[in-house]
């Protein structure tokens, strides 16, 4: 009898303590009280600027902010949002693998900020609409003509190479061969292919690599805009019928298939999944490959394995004929407010603080060369961001380099069949199937697959 009571007591104690630990683990060490919950991606720019921004905001407003930054932030906040709560302010871009921002947008769970943009940021006297760079404003409105998200960071994509290996192009449209051991910088795909053909052994020096096929989501739209114009590019993003059979639109796919003999031999293998893509990037630093398509973050990403004497060069994506406009593409990372927030005013105050002069200066000082797409950022960031990094963006801020924004796919209807791939999986991802050594597909098969998928998406919207 005593034994039974004793063991019963013990099991109750065990159960209570285990559930207590479980509760603690679930709510995370005590669960302090806070007024505002800010969550975001811990990415290539680091997290120091967020900690400083939160400190500055707490000092100014006297409110407590809970900050959560993780590399896989979607996995943490999506359950919270599904349960009806979640962060008040979210910093998370479109185009992520888990697509949380797109899903929230589709389901109307982001606060409408159209009228908010006419409010002034803190201590600046300018409104959001006045401050945000014209190029960034292009993609801000959604299909219903309202703005839900504000672009916080801009990244330029383009062709990256070792600047010391090249001499300037003489503009005659023909590849002029090597001079003093340097290659001529190509301006067009014809010169690019000729450069590839001139390389004797692709195992020693090859022409081009991608980190993963997904990185082509900048190169391909930019090339379509160059060859066919920005209106046709918009048609592509809106799944217009037969747009992908337009020869000017689909020439890029044929060119990509044509350079298959000159690509880095391990390109496709390393690009499978997200484990070994860094080796593709390293091949450019090591001199095994001449070009890769990438974004500005690669300089920070590869810093540990780049020699101090290495100089990065960037050019916009290539033209097809002389006289065409060449583009770099911009990728914006957005910040937005959760519609379910109970702290709408405080969340808006936080946004006003981030875009104020003080906030932008904190970002310039503490982030790893993050660029905010506002017109006063170059002045505020001077002296805080390395001069070379700022110079690379001079063309963006003064409007001389033409940019397009990518990943502007129109939101599909809700009746897509369950096995539909994402557009980028076929437009970009299928390049791996074209470039692989065995069982590869032709460029025409690739184009046909894109057109078929575009039809599926269009039918889901009009259905």
């Amino acid at each position, binding site marked *: 009898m005593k034994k*039974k009571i004793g063991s*019963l007591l013990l*099991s109750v104690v065990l*159960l209570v303590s285990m559930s207590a630990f479980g509760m603690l683990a679930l709510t995370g060490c005590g669960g302090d009280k806070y007024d505002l919950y800010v969550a975001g991606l811990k990415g290539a720019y680091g997290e120091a600027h967020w900690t400083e921004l939160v400190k500055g905001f707490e000092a100014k407003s006297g409110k407590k902010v809970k900050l959560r930054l993780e590399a896989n932030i979607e996995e943490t906040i*999506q359950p919270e*949002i*599904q349960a009806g709560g979640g962060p008040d302010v979210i910093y998370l871009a479109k185009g992520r*693998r*888990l*697509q*949380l921002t*797109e*899903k*929230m947008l*589709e*389901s109307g*769970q982001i606060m409408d900020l159209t009228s908010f943009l006419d409010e002034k940021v803190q201590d600046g006297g300018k409104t959001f609409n006045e401050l945000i760079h014209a190029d960034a404003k292009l993609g801000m409105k959604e299909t219903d003509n309202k703005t839900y998200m504000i672009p916080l960071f801009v990244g330029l994509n383009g062709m990256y190479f070792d600047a010391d290996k090249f001499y300037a192009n003489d503009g005659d449209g023909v590849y002029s061969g090597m001079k003093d051991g340097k290659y001529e910088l190509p301006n067009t795909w014809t010169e690019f292919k000729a450069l590839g053909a001139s390389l004797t052994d692709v195992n020693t020096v090859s022409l081009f690599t991608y980190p993963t096929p997904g990185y082509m989501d900048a190169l391909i739209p930019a090339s379509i805009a160059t060859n066919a114009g920005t209106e046709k590019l918009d048609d592509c993003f809106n799944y217009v019928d037969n747009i992908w059979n337009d020869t000017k639109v689909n020439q890029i796919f044929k060119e990509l298939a044509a350079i298959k003999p000159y690509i880095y*031999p*391990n390109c*496709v*293998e*390393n690009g*499978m*999944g997200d*484990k*070994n893509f860094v*080796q593709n990037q390293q091949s450019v630093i090591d001199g095994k490959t001449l070009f890769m398509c990438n974004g500005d973050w690669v300089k920070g990403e590869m810093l540990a394995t780049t020699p101090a004497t290495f100089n990065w060069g960037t050019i916009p994506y290539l033209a097809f004929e002389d006289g065409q406009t060449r583009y770099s593409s911009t990728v914006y990372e957005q910040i937005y407010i959760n519609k379910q927030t109970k702290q709408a005013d405080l969340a808006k105050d936080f946004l006003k603080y981030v875009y104020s002069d003080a906030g932008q200066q904190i970002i310039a000082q503490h982030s790893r060369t993050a660029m905010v797409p506002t017109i006063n950022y170059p002045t505020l960031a001077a002296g805080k961001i390395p001069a070379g990094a700022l110079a690379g963006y001079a063309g963006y801020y003064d409007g001389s380099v033409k940019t397009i924004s990518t990943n502007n796919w129109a939101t599909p209807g*809700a*009746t*897509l*069949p*369950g*096995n*539909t*791939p*994402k557009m980028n*999986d076929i437009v970009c*991802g*299928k390049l*791996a*199937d074209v470039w*692989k*050594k*065995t*069982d590869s597909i032709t460029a025409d098969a690739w184009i046909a697959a894109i057109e078929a998928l575009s039809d599926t998406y269009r039918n889901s919207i009009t259905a």
Partner: protein
Amino acid sequence: MEQASEAAALQSSVGVKKMVKHPHARRNAFIALCIIPTFVLYTIFVIYPVFNMFYLSFFSWNGVGAQIPQGWENFRVLMDDDIFWRAAGNTVLLILIVTAVTIGLALYSAAVLAKGKLKGKTFFRIVLYIPNILSIVVISAIFSALYSPEYGILGGIIRLFKGTYTGLMTGRWTSMGAVAVAMVWQAVGYYMVMYIAGMDSIPDSLYESASLEGASKMRQFFVITLPLTWQVIRVTLTFFVISTINMSFLFITAMGDTSINSPLHVLLTYMFERKNAGFYGYSMAIGSILFIFAYAVSLIINWLTKREVVEV
């Protein structure tokens, strides 16, 4: 006389019944109290999600929006889906190969290390078991490095013989083989240890009399060792098939490509990819099929390996 004994018998039986009822009632209450918490947790975290999975497979849901009823639409699309059938084929193939090779190697190692007088027996047992302790991430990193086209040993060896090597992860069969090798390497030690335990309980006298009568080592293995360890093998076989389904997901996610174009998809990775793409209902439909498949496989294996228990 008879009446008295009858009365006594009646009294004693009633008394016995009384005595039987009460202690059991208290004991049963105590047992129930101990089991109920676990049962409740099990219902919430195992039983309910399974029903939820079947329920959701009849809807279309993107994870944050409304759930739209679809009827059998998800399953109809599934039947026409090439990637689903390829994933199903890959799953079946992986189960067959990995199970056969692992159990075979485990049995062989166990037979050599259990009763044999091999020098360094303990050393081999430890070395063969260590892969099982390593985390899947570590093993995947090891094999990824091994298979890497730039820095891998495999590439180096092939180039030594003047071949060209550009990696294993792009082709369907090569990548399946690469993952299967990693899975076998990880699992052999665990099953070897279980079979050694089973084989150690077989008395030496059987082997002695067998060798006296002139039976070879091979014949001894098939006639003595195998029937007497059959129950152990049977249990591990069922368990391992289910385990392969789970482990294949971990290894493929850690080692290979999980985008929709990947040649390497198995049912679990395809289900996960569809969930990430925002098609929760469809992914639950795949999950439902996988659930039924796993159950059917274990039932079939159980039935196929039924034998009357041989005991010493």
